């Protein structure tokens, strides 16, 4: 069964049609990549899935259930976790608290218990702390920075903390918005490894927006291409990569030699 089904979703802002009858199916247990030119509507689609945007038309189904009417927190509670294109960590908190925040949807402590820090509050807090330490910090290798304020961390680590926070939700579907943007090759490789591990060890379904084609080709099982709010191609990475429309709208030459020549100004015409 597919984990996520976006069914004919349309979304517009004033005059801008960010999404135009988009349908995307994300198969359980795989990595689906969503690519497309800037402004094609990828982030908007994520927002429509996580409930931040309300599409004007269409449905969103999660594990077979229509969640179109649910609000963001309810969708999160169902197990839709995500990271953000522009890092959205809580800058006033430490790494640990940021990650604990991810576990919010899994806990139930009420106000009264929290004020006295007795009963459920104490139990749950200790429990999620242990889980986070064991499952998330060790895994993502960020245990040494748990007490750092996130604002002071280098960009790459911040991205990793974001991933950690999403994992602390124990999501069933993970939406990753440009997880390796702004990283150098080495860091990208680390991130790729984490993503693959998350998929395999945690059995999480992943939908990912990414502009690094090398990474998309290497790790995704399925690719959707958006352009001007419409799906223009989908399928196995290799098929999509060969699609002329995709090359035209998105990929470009993707050939270092040609590019190099162009940059050096030897072939103006291109």
């Amino acid at each position, binding site marked *: 069964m597919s984990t996520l089904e976006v069914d004919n979703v349309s979304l517009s802002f004033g005059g801008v049609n960010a999404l135009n009858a988009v349908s995307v199916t994300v198969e359980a247990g795989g990595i689906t990549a969503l690519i497309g030119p800037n402004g094609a509507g990828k982030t908007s689609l994520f927002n429509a899935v996580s409930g931040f945007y309300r599409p004007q038309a269409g449905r969103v189904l999660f594990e077979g259930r229509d969640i179109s009417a649910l609000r963001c927190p309810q969708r999160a509670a169902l197990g839709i976790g995500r990271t953000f294109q522009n890092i959205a960590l809580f800058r*006033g*908190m430490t790494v640990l608290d940021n990650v604990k925040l991810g576990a*919010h949807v899994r806990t139930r*402590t009420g*106000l009264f218990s*929290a004020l006295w820090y007795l009963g459920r*509050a*104490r139990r749950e*807090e200790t429990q999620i702390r242990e889980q986070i330490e064991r499952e998330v910090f060790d895994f993502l290798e960020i245990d040494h920075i748990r007490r750092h304020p996130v604002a002071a961390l280098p960009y790459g680590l911040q991205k990793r903390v974001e991933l950690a926070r999403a994992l602390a*939700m124990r999501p069933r579907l993970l939406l990753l918005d440009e997880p390796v943007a702004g990283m150098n090759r080495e860091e990208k490789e680390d991130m790729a490894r984490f993503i693959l591990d998350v998929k395999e060890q945690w059995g999480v379904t992943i939908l990912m927006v990414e502009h690094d084609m090398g990474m998309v080709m290497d790790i995704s099982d399925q690719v959707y291409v958006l352009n001007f709010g419409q799906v223009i191609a989908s399928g196995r990475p290799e098929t999509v990569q060969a699609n002329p429309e995709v090359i035209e709208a998105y990929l470009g030459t993707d050939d270092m030699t040609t590019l190099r020549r162009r940059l050096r100004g030897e072939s103006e015409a291109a």
Partner: protein
Amino acid sequence: MRIGSPKETYAADEALFRTRTQWAWFGVLLAALAGFPFVANLYWLYLVCLVSINVIAVTGLNVLTGYTGQVSLGQAAFMGVGAYTVAWLENHTGSPFPVNLLAGSVVATGVGLIAGLPSLRVKGLYLAIATIAASFILLFIFKNWESVTNGTRGIGIEPPSAFGVALENPDTFYWLVVPVTVVMLLLASNLFRTRIGRAFIAIRDRDISASVLGIDLPRYKLMSFGISAFYAGMAGGLYAYFFGSINPESFPLLMSIFLLAAVIVGGMGSMLGSILGGIFMTLVPELLRYGIDFLGLFMENASAVLSPVRTVVFGLLIVGFLLFEPLGLAEIWRRIRRFFHLWPFRT
């Protein structure tokens, strides 16, 4: 975080006081608070009581403004709600004071929840002004709902009594207000060890992403307003008992500004900040008075001539502290501690 104090368990690492030293300091503080009435005169006890009441109100406001990021200028009016409730109960039902105080806080909470509704739509300064609106409406009610509030004339309240002792002077009232304050502070500190407190901070830092991560914004924003108003109600109830009479002008907008100033000067999003801010804003005017007394030794009629100077200095102190450390007294305190911690090594 202290260097070189390995934790045994994660539970221990989650504790409110993580090290033995911290526990020791807490003990010393409690002992000092318990011993204070035996050494201080009524004036100082009076000030401590006043500081305590303010600290409760400031703590509540800090939960809302400092931790949840919802700027409110309605705290004094919520105090008024608590105070009027206590006064009414005291004069009409004669119920015992703990019941009245709780009832006052609960009623204030209810009003706070309603006043918090605009926060679901508006943010930042817009919200602050909306809370001013709420506070004006409350003041209007205090002034004009004669049958309950006795209008502008105000109401008198008999002092509470416990175990047959009337808590009418600061030396006795101290034993009511200080423990209540300590408990209220502990409760608030606890809150920020749990998911609810984290949700508040997340809302402050970036509410929309918090929402996507599963935090129900309306629920937590209102909860924060409610808690803050609860604290205000408690402070207001104690205020009513402490001063023995209230009228609509006891809770002016200026007082809300004063409380907000205490939060900011103390340090937003810091319990220590609430305490330091409450102390600072309450005591500085008093200390300035001493300063003028002192100058009075050298100049005739100092108090008349220098009183406006006091206003200037008070303003300058707020400006100066914030220029020097925009994060407030709590941050200055942290810096001092860090300095002694690392001393004599310079980083």
